[in-house]
């Protein structure tokens, strides 16, 4: 199973998470988002960028609770709350946003 980006083939697992993290690009993010029926706006990107920075620094994708707490701190309570985050990513802010961000499924998601 694979995504097609500008003629390149990028492998993903049965749930849609890409297998080689370094193959991620913004174009790919848009393609994964489209497959998930997520229309990427500024706030979606803020979450995706936050996840990528977090992974870069700590080598893990944060659990949803940690994600929301951190977004609340960096972007304020209007964005960093459960309800709004689920509006942005209906299938779970950590799970779905991590997929779009090209990261592994968050630790603790079973």
């Amino acid at each position: 199973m694979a995504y097609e980006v500008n003629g390149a083939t990028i492998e993903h697992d049965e749930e849609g998470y890409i297998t080689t993290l370094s193959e991620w690009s913004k174009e790919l993010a848009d393609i994964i988002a489209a497959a998930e029926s997520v229309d990427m706006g500024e706030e979606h990107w803020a979450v995706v960028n936050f996840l990528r920075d977090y992974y870069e620094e700590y080598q893990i994708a944060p659990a949803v609770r940690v994600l929301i707490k951190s977004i609340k701190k960096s972007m304020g309570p209007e964005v960093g709350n459960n309800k709004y985050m689920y509006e942005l990513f209906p299938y779970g802010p950590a799970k779905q946003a991590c997929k779009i961000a090209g990261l592994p499924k968050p630790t603790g998601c079973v």
Partner: protein
Amino acid sequence: MSETIKKFLYVNRKAPYGTIYAQESLEVVLIGAAFDQDVSLAFLDDGVFQLTKGQNTKEIGLKNFSATYRALGDYEVTKLYVEKESLEERGLTLDDLQNIEYEDEDDDYAEKPSIRLVTRAEMADVMADQDVVLSF
């Protein structure tokens, strides 16, 4: 969520990369942190190497997960007990370990150190004080 909060201690005794124990322990801690229990970690024997600075796993083809210990504060895991004698027996000091901090929500998010240096005798007291002790 259960009303009863139990004290969990994860005991780490092995070097980080020779076996899978260290990484698995960390994974269990991160998953377990979702259950709002009182979680502490202990590092003794070769386990103290898990927290050392400047780890480089390039040549062994394994993921360097040492940065993840610095995320523990985000998961409200803020007590990392390190045994003094184990450090000394390996020629290490606190300066050889990563700087791991947490933000204290009750103190205007002040950054405080998570690593607590304890003697072997104090470590025994830490262990005796737990409801559940898990060894890795």
